[in-house]
């Protein structure tokens, strides 16, 4: 077992990078080598506060002896950066969605396989304490056989490059389908077979989808629906939610992942706010990544998992455009 893992971070375009940075810094078994980001201003506070090395070019960071990198770039750059890291022999933890096309994601998975490195997709929601308990309850059969699932991952409009299709590859439907979709795939041990969806621009001026409803039928017969809309207004107490309701033959199970909160009513803010006091899911995600690499085990959430989830969002766009359901080929038939 490796005593310490050398980790570098590539791009802070996605705000989750700051949280992953904290999680990495808190670990005694991680040596955080530095940050690569073409935008120095964006990462300057972190470089200064923690005395980290800076690389303007990701290739320079990849030329060092780091074992692994965490990629939090704009969505369109996930594939080229992951392939570059794989070719440099570095393991990768990549922010979601894994990629913006099936071909791109297959290329990422293949590059990592060919170079003998691991690819993990950052789906921290698997590490929410309520989700872990829910999964255990389902596996124990507490609610019988699951027949239907309804999920929500409603959020605020993130703005910036998220609203620019040339950098994000899609709006709310891509950004917010993948988390709960991954949970559904994980809970059901099955694969989506058919997708029907609406995608629309209803809440904001930016010309990108900010509203949607994604219906999925799984191979094992389970029906599901998920709301990925950026529908939380500025007046809402928090950024958004992750909920999942499972209907089973012997009962139901409801997860409201961010219900562990205190409510605050403050005169300055003039709107209620919620202070989340539950466990950090990012700490546990980073821990899982680090321990798998140190112990030379398979990462718990693979590139294939990222693919299976993101392809549903891509199919949702196709369905919304065509106005009819879109069939998904089984993963083994599309592989390679």
């Amino acid at each position, binding site marked *: 077992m490796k005593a310490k893992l050398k980790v570098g971070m590539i791009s802070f375009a996605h705000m989750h990078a700051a949280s992953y940075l904290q999680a990495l810094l808190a670990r005694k078994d991680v040596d955080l080598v530095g940050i690569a980001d073409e935008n120095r201003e964006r990462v300057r506070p972190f470089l200064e506060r923690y005395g980290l090395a800076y690389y303007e070019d990701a290739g320079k960071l990849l030329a060092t002896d780091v074992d692994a990198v965490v990629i939090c770039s704009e969505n369109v750059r996930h594939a080229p950066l992951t392939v570059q890291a794989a070719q440099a022999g570095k393991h990768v933890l990549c922010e979601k969605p894994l990629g913006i096309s099936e071909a791109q994601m297959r290329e990422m998975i293949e590059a990592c396989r060919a170079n003998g490195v691991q690819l993990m997709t950052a789906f921290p929601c698997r590490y929410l304490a309520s989700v872990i308990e829910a999964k255990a309850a389902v596996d124990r059969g507490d609610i019988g056989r699951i027949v239907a699932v309804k999920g929500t991952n409603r959020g605020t409009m993130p703005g910036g490059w998220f609203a620019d299709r040339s950098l994000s590859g899609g709006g709310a439907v891509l950004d917010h389908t993948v988390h709960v979709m991954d949970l559904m795939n994980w809970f059901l041990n099955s694969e989506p077979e058919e997708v029907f969806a609406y995608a629309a621009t209803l*809440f*904001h001026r930016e010309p990108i989808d900010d509203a949607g409803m994604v219906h999925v039928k799984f191979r094992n017969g389970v029906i599901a*629906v998920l709301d990925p*809309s950026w529908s939380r207004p500025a007046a809402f107490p928090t950024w958004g939610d992750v909920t999942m309701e499972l209907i089973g033959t012997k009962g139901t199970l409801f997860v409201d992942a961010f219900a562990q909160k205190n409510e605050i009513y403050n005169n300055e803010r003039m709107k209620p706010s919620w202070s989340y006091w539950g466990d950090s899911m990012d700490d546990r995600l980073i821990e899982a990544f680090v321990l798998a690499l140190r112990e030379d085990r398979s990462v718990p959430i693979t590139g294939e998992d990222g693919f299976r989830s993101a392809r549903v969002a891509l199919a949702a766009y196709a369905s919304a455009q065509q106005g009819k359901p879109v069939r998904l080929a089984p993963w083994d038939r599309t592989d390679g």
Partner: protein
Amino acid sequence: MRVSIIGCGTMGITYAKNLASMEEADLAGVCDIDAARAEEAAKAGGTRAYSDYKAMLEMENPDVVCVCLPTYLHKGTVIELARLGKHIICEKPIGLTLEEADAMIEACRENGVRLFVGHVVRFFPNYADAAGQIARGETGGPGVAHLKRYGSYPQGNGQWYHDRNKSGGVIMDLMIHDIDFVRSVYGEADAVYAAKAQSGGEDPFEYAMVTIHFLNGAIANLTAYWGYPGPFTTEAEFAGSQGVLRLGSESSRSLIVTSKEKGPEGKAAVQVPQSPMRHDPYYRELKHFLDCIRDGSEPLVTAEDARAALEIALAAERSCQTGQPVAIGGKRA
């Protein structure tokens, strides 16, 4: 106004209690083929029980008749009452098919009587308030809505709810409340997509998820569940360009009684959460319909609205079977 009731199941008894307490109404007989049920309703409403509705109509000569029968009996009963010149308050859904609904509406029009359909959710104060807030623009332009309605599997007389040919199932019977309500908020629907999970046998359930796309662009996902093991639960959320409105039965309990005393069956009494009001929504609904009859005004929810909700429910059923979205016939160019 003299008001009679045909059908003394849960709804008939609810109507009897409310009409009995209403100044505007003179409850004039209740009828059920099951004499014990008729007696129970008569007692609750302080009126006379009948087991033959023709005898009741003859003896009581009502102005208005409430039809609280299983859905498959609505059409025949309503048409007969219309021919007898009675105004009619009919439970939802209006009927099992659009042909039935059209025949009922037409018969009432021809005979110059009013037909009201009991889409009572319009009269629930939390939903009525939501409709008003959204109409005033509190949530801005149309966005994404969620509506949920979960309850136990209904136990009608002779288990008629279990028979799809009599009740139409969970979409037609339960979700139709939310279909009507969300249509009252967003207007005409454009298309509907739906999926359903169900099982018969000893412990039956039916769960449906339906997404309605509206001409104004709004997207609404409705879920309904017969066989939910928890308490009857309703929730709704309307997200728009300027805000979010949420309501829920679980989050608006204004009274929670807990007791250390044993209940009547020897079990420890459980919490009984309530949200009491001076009048229940059925009182508001029935009073409104009687007011409409008296002054000839248009009701908050018309028989045509009931037909439109049925059309969406039927389209949702078809979508469940075909796996394809179904366009709504009322679609305007």
